């Protein structure tokens, strides 16, 4: 396999330097982070460079971290270089007060519905998206259900102390 993690890291450092804030490997996948302002630049770079060639967007989704002040929402991209068969995870953070992230639809047609889904559940506004409206929930909904401020009842709650069951 030609494309190594070290090569990807060095190419990204060469191009973006300090702007890539984190490069870690977890469970066999390189995970990189960058400010949301340059998400398209990074995606374009990963997509266009011949030696990187991450031309397949496997997945795009959001995550809500209520404890990270100022960067509560994350957008996570899973990219795949099909020729070298290397996967990479790329994430950007945005604040919940102004959840604007540039859309990747210009690069990947597949991002269209994935971004709509992410908007629908997390309220992340993808700037430049051609049709950013709810996709799985009703249009009249005025909240974003996958955010952590809407908890379900915890099925593993500990307030039911029952010594009979060894808890």
């Amino acid at each position, binding site marked *: 396999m030609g494309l190594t993690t070290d090569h990807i890291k060095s190419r990204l450092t060469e191009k973006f330097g300090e702007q890539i804030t984190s490069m870690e490997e977890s469970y066999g996948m390189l995970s990189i982070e960058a400010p949301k302002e340059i998400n398209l630049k990074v995606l374009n770079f990963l997509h266009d460079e011949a030696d990187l060639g991450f031309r397949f967007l496997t997945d795009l989704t959001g995550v809500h971290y209520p404890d990270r002040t100022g960067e509560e929402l994350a957008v996570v991209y*899973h990219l795949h270089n099909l020729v070298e068969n290397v996967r990479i995870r790329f994430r950007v953070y945005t604040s919940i007060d102004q959840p604007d992230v540039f859309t990747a639809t210009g690069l990947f047609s597949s991002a269209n519905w994935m971004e709509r889904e992410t908007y629908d559940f997390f309220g992340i506004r993808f700037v430049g998206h051609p049709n950013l409206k709810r996709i799985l929930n009703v249009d009249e909904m005025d909240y974003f259900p996958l955010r952590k401020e809407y908890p379900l009842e915890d099925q*593993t709650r500990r307030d039911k102390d029952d010594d009979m069951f060894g808890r």
Partner: protein
Amino acid sequence: MSHNIKLPEGSIEKQTITLNLGPTHPATHGVFQNILELDGERVVSAEQTVGYIHRAFEKIAERRPLYQITPLTDRLNYCSSPINNMGWHLTCEKLLGVKTPKRVDYLRVIVMELARIADHLICNSIVGVDTGAYTGFLYVMQYRELIYEIYEEVCGSRLTTNIGRIGGFERDFNDIAFQKIDKFLKEYPAVLKEFISLFERNRIFMERTQGSGGIGADRALNYGFTGPNLRAAGVDYDVRVHSPYSSYEDFDFTIPTGTTGDNFDRWQVRNQEMWESLSIIEQALRKIQDLKGEEATLYHADAPAYYLPEKKDVYTKMEALIYHFKIIMGESEMPSGEVYQSVEGANGELGFYLISDGGRAPFRLHFRRPCFVYYQSFEELVKGGMLSDAVITLSSLNLIAGEMDA
């Protein structure tokens, strides 16, 4: 919808009409709405919406320990739920660092390939139904039944199977299960052959599927196509080969591909995949027989913290009951981290993205559902074609409502 659009050249009427194909139309296979703009019978533009049967799986999963999530995965692509189950258990194993014995891997391969056949069988015969060829659909139903009987023997249920455990299976496959698999392997090739010739000798079917709903390799990749739909466009990407899981690297099989990515190619690729699946199951059976010593009998990993005790022990031994309870309630420690694991689902790459913060339930779980990705390309596939072709295109994409709006 706007009427001021550029009509295809040669259209006689300069007026278009809007047609709602679905939701709950017999040809839409679920709650999908397709707002088609038609010039005569030709599709000028289309807008497709996913129905609101959204069940909030990802939200529910944030409150559930690992085993309680398995039943949710059953209900994604319910035509091949064992593949979803295995994909989920593989994800958990990756997170927890559980290594499965070879026999488990091979048994899983058998179950997953049976599920693939069951799924392709339904999809391909439904494509037939949508062209008016109903016989094939009725004919193959009894063979899906044979597969369901195998599931039943292995785990006790048929459709939403909940099959397997983290680390292996709940119990070993019994002799009857193996006999049923043998019976299926013996009977199915002739059926498949007949099924294929039934359609390939049907002129209406051939003419309606060939050349309609096509997509090129570049566009398919850009749209995030995977599975048979991508392979029909000529790209030989298969998760089983490129990122092997469950010992798929030990098997010898080819990846069927098409050339034009049209409805017929998609149908054809699925048929060829069924042949490959049959061969994989045969190989797996042989490999299981060749296992020696302890490996030949192990049907689960040695991971007492995550593998549920056997049911007979749970009913009779206090220790086992407590273990069972603790595992189900997520009392065992879960490492923190982010895992992405994908499997080759019957209709494409099914991915599980799990973020764990060390709590009892995932901090975030996201399913990468292949048909959610396909459906957005529908407009491009049907634009310029006939209304009746749109119906076939819809079914040949193998869209499963449950999976789409998880």
